[in-house]
Each structure stands twice: as structure tokens, then as C-alpha cells.
């Protein structure tokens, strides 16, 4: 939503504070060459073993990157947590709706967990409860099960993130490669377009879209099964808006990478051997876009999840009876002084997810391009 990560960031060299007794300065360039080579070829025990393994079977850069990623403990923990949430969102409701015995409600008669453990069922005399055996994470002010709502919210977040990314990646690669490879008017148009998108704060655009077309979406798009029903119609609209705002940045990254690749010798080699442009694009350029697309997509996913939560928080996204993390937050606002748990739960979960994604994204970037660290 907001293009915080527009600039590739690098961290700096080791440097010392000016307070030390011997006045510091830069390393003599001659020695720097030597020392740096030494540093670069430092091999720990593990690396030595790997090197020996590698020498038997040359690894592709992809495998190298994955190996580096696997060694990044922080990133691995984070992807684990994200994985947990994904599984929770997908399989949680299925399991949860079969856990628990029959419950006699004054308003709805005797019902089983497949009713009272859904995200939309209201049990009006069980409002604002804390965690219990029946309602694992408590209930909100309409007597709805918080765990169920949380899982549904997670499902929404994940689905949107994936949907937006699919569009983002497709459009981004398509336009980016065309702009980078052929240049010309496509490139110009992309540049102008990107300028406009950047100038328009993402949120504003989405508010505009959701505000003006929201109701229309509610009436016309609710018909679409699964996606549109249950208050999610606006969300479809919002997803499209988010994808629309996201792909120019991806296209920019792809274009940049394509330009770089285009100048490299293997492309020239392919060209001289008579490979057609399309073939070059498909076989040489696109596979090499992998790392930058993956990193950019991961980072964009965080933005999407935050954006969806934000939009729903403002009342422009998922509507009741649907559930979204943002919606849960806004609906719990009145209860902050009496039942802070209702707002802390979704906010906390969102915070964890965002942090995990951020750390993982950092780790991913470092794994694919360790040079960007120094």
C-alpha cells in the first residue's frame, strides 16, 4: 500500500567509533584487498563441509540461495510461524467445528459446535466473554466466537495476499519484461503510470474506489460464490484495487532486472546464435527474474495484508457478518476499557504476522543477494 521498500537498502561496513585512543580511519586499500579476500574466503566448519559436497555436485544459484536461507534461523522461525497461521486458517475451522459438545442456547435451541463455532453465529447472552472451554479465545460483543472469527480473518488475509500477488506478479513480469526488453513507448508509458501511482497515496486510491463503488459491489458482487458472499464483496473490489496499485512497482523491479540481464553476455550469445526474441525472453530472462520477483512479492504481501486490515478497519473492506482482522479491531474499539482482550487479540496476531513476514523478507533478500548485506 505504501511504498516503503522502494529503495534497496544496504548495511554498512564494520566501523569503529571515533572515541578510541588510536585515531581510526579507512583501511589501506592494498591491505583491504588482501584482508577482504581473507574475509570473503573465511570458511567455518559447516561451510567447509558444504564446499566439499558442492564440489562433487555443482549447485545452481537457486540451491545456493535456498541453502543460505535455511541457515538463517530467524527467517526459518518466521516462515514456520507464518506456516502455522496458514494451516490454522485453512484447517482450523474444519477441526474447530467438530470440537465441543452440544450447547443449549436460549435463543437458538440446542446447537452443536458446527453452529456455535462459526464466525458468524451470534450467541447474544454470551457476549464479551474471556477464553473458556467452549469458546477457546472468548467472544465478542455480539457473542461470536473470537477464535473462529480470527481464523476467518486470517483466511481472508491470506487469500487476498495470494490473489493480489498473482495479479501483481503476472502483470509485473509481463509489462516489466516488455518495458525492459523492448523499451520504447511501453517503457515510457510504464514510467508515467508508475509516477502517477506513486504520487497517489495507495490508501487514498482504495478509499476512492471502495467509497464510490463499495455499495455497488455489495449488491452486485455478493452473488459470486465463496468470494463475494458474507460481506466479502467489497473485498473483491479492494483486492483488485490493491493489485492495480501494486503491479507498477513490481514491473519497475522487473524492468530494472531485465535491463541488467539484457546487457549480459549470455543474452548476446543467444542472440547471435539466432534465438528469437521471444525465446530469449522465455528461456533466459524470465528464469533469472526469480529472485527479485520472489523478494518483491514477499515484501508486497506484507503491504497487502496490512492494507486489507487497514481498509476493513476503516469499514471499507469486509463487512459484517464477514470477519477480517481489521474488522475485528474496529469492532472491539468500544470495548477497550472494559474488555481489552478483544482488541489485543487481532492486533497482536497481526503484529506477529507482519513482523514475521518482515524478518522473513529480510532473510530472503539476504539469501538471494548476500552482497546486498555489505
Amino acid at each position, binding site marked *: 500500500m505504501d511504498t*516503503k521498500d522502494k529503495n534497496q537498502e544496504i548495511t554498512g561496513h564494520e566501523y569503529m567509533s571515533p572515541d578510541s585512543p588510536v585515531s581510526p580511519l*579507512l583501511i589501506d586499500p592494498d591491505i583491504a584487498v588482501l584482508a577482504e579476500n581473507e574475509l570473503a574466503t573465511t570458511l567455518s566448519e559447516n561451510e567447509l563441509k558444504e564446499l566439499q559436497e558442492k564440489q562433487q555436485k555443482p549447485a545452481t544459484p537457486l540451491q545456493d540461495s535456498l541453502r543460505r536461507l535455511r541457515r538463517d534461523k530467524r527467517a526459518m522461525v518466521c516462515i514456520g510461524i507464518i506456516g502455522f497461521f496458514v494451516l490454522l486458517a485453512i484447517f482450523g475451522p474444519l477441526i474447530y467445528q467438530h470440537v465441543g459438545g452440544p450447547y443449549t442456547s436460549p435463543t437458538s435451541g440446542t446447537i452443536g459446535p458446527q453452529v456455535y463455532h462459526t464466525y458468524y453465529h451470534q450467541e447474544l447472552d454470551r457476549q464479551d466473554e474471556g477464553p473458556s472451554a467452549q469458546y477457546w479465545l472468548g467472544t465478542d460483543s455480539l457473542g461470536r466466537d473470537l477464535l473462529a472469527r480470527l481464523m476467518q480473518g486470517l483466511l481472508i488475509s491470506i487469500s487476498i495476499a495470494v490473489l493480489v500477488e498473482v495479479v501483481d506478479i503476472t502483470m509485473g513480469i509481463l509489462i516489466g519484461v516488455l518495458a525492459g526488453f523492448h523499451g520504447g513507448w511501453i517503457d515510457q508509458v510504464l514510467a508515467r503510470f508508475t509516477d502517477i501511482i506513486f504520487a497517489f497515496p495507495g490508501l487514498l486510491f482504495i478509499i476512492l474506489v471502495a467509497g464510490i463503488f463499495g455499495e455497488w459491489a455489495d449488491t452486485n458482487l455478493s452473488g459470486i460464490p465463496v468470494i463475494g458472499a458474507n460481506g466479502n464483496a467489497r473485498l473483491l473490489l479492494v483486492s483488485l484495487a490493491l493489485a492495480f496499485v501494486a503491479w507498477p512497482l513490481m514491473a519497475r523491479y522487473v524492468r530494472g532486472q531485465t535491463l541488467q540481464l539484457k546487457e549480459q553476455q549470455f543474452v548476446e550469445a543467444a542472440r547471435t546464435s539466432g534465438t528469437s526474441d521471444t525465446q530469449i525472453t522465455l528461456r533466459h530472462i524470465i528464469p533469472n527474474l526469480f529472485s527479485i520477483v520472489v523478494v518483491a512479492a514477499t515484501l508486497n504481501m506484507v503491504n497487502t495484508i496490512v492494507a486489507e486490515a487497514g481498509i476493513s*478497519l476503516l469499514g471499507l473492506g469486509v463487512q459484517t457478518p464477514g470477519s477480517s482482522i481489521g474488522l475485528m479491531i474496529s469492532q472491539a474499539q468500544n470495548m*477497550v476499557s472494559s474488555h481489552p482482550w478483544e482488541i489485543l487479540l487481532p492486533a497482536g496476531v497481526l503484529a506477529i504476522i507482519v513482523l514475521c513476514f518482515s524478518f522473513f523478507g529480510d532473510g530472503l533478500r539476504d539469501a538471494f543477494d548476500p552482497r546486498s548485506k555489505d
Partner: protein
Amino acid sequence: MVQFLIKRFIGLIFVVIGVTFITFVMGYFAPGDPIRAMMGSHYDPVVYAQLKHTYGLDQPFFVQYWHFLTGLFRLDFGLSFQYQNRPVWDILKDGIPISTELGFWALVLEVLVGIPIGIISALKANTWIDTTNMGIVLVMYSLPVFVFAVFFQVFVVSIDNGTGAQWPVANWGNAWHYSWSDIQFKIGPIVILALSLVAYLARITRTSMLEVLRQDFVRTARAKGMRERVVIYRHALRNALIPVVTILGLSLGLIVTGTFFLEDFFNIPGIGETTLQATQYRDYPVIQATAVLLAVAVVIGNLISDILYTLVDPRIKAA
């Protein structure tokens, strides 16, 4: 330098036109018939035609667009759909000083806190100070504004409950006035907004500073016998802040976004809040007006940061 600025200015005009066009198009194709909706059950063809004329909705597309554009220069955004016969500008103008105040102080705080953190981290790179700083900063950088707001609210409310204090979590006090009660209202949202931005600035400052400290001319400054403080704050910092200035322009977009959320969250009567209410009532002109105003503000902000950039980096003057 003048050439550079002119080029940028033209580019920005193009962007503004693009933005206004998109906004206008959306309003034009907005579903529903606002005049009908306004009339409710009192539908009368004659009045309908009159109203349509008053709102200029009976003109062809480009005429409407032209009116829209020219109106912008006069701050005439048309009439509100919700409050009939009330100009949109009238509705928005009270909120503008408030939103600006929030954004302004957040920006000031962001600079006053973010840059020093970045510098300290760079000077003590890779020590525990740096790692802690950057760790905290990464967390702040990742979390969305409204999550901060939630934690803040919960925190304040629990203190209120516990001690019986009355620190407010809603409303704004008087715009641009700073009595103690005014400050109480304002400090929370401002600090929250600033914190979410500080991270961004601190990271950039740190990176830039580290990059500059590696440069040869820093070594030359030391070789000249300049004292360490002079080397860092005069020679290095001056160069390190150059990219930071451009980045500040970019944080405007973040400020605008953040303001929307915070106004909603804390019930602050700025233009964000007004616009959000307008979305509920399908008051498109208001939404359009805000979109244009804010986009233009961001664009102007970028232009200012570009100008600052040319002032600060002498190499650009010659370009």
C-alpha cells in the same frame, strides 16, 4: 538547476492531471444516481432536471471534466451530495488545519528523533547499541500505524482505569493551540504517527551515514587535522543527509495514510474523518475533493524535497 526543476515541475503537472482525471472518472462512473438519491421520495421530474443542472450533471463528459479542473483552481469542488447546497470546500475547510497539524508535528518529530537515531547507530555500527536500535527500528518499521494506535489506546485506558487519571483517547482539542489539555489530546496521535515514520528515516540515515563514512574525503578531512567532531558533523553528515532529504518527501505519502487511520481511530475531526463519513453517505464530491487535495499535497511535497535536494547537493546545480 532551473532546467532540472522545470523538468520535474512538468512531470508533476502531468501527475496531477492524471490524478484528477482518475478521480473525476471514478466520480463520473459512480453507480447510482445521486440526484435521485437526494430527492428520495420526493421525485419530481422538473425539480430533478433543475437539480441536475445545478450540479452540472447534465453536461457532456469533457465539459464536466473541464469544469472540474477549472473549479479545482478556485477551490471549488462543487456541491456536496449529502448536505445539499453546501460547497464541498466549506465542509472540508475546517478539517484541513487539524489534519495538517497532526501531519506537521509528526513530521517534525520524525526528523528530530529519526535522524539522530540513525547517526548514533552508524557511529556505533555493529555494537550492541546499533543492534538494539535497529532491532527496535525494524519492529516499528514493520508494524502498521493502527496497531501502534491499538496498543497505545489499551495502554492509556488501562492506566486511566488503574489510576483514575483522565488522559483522553479521542478528539483533538483546539487546532494549533497548546494548552495542557490540548496537548493531552494531541500528543498520543502525533507520537504514534511519528514513531511509525521514525523507523524509516533512521534506517536510511544509518545506511547513508555508513556509506559516507567510508568515503575517501572523510579520510582527507582527518588527514588535514580536523577534529573528529568536525569530521563527522560537518564533513560526513552534510553528505549523508543528501539522500535523506529526498526520502523525506516520500514519507509524505505515509503521513497522509497514517493521518487517515489515526483520525478514524481517535475521532479526530480532520479531513480524513470527514471523508470517511462521506463514503458512508456516498458523497462523492467530498471524496473526490479530498483525493485531489491530498494527492496534490503529496506532489507538492515531493517537489519541495526535490528543490531542497538541488540546494543541498552542489553537483546537481550543474546538471
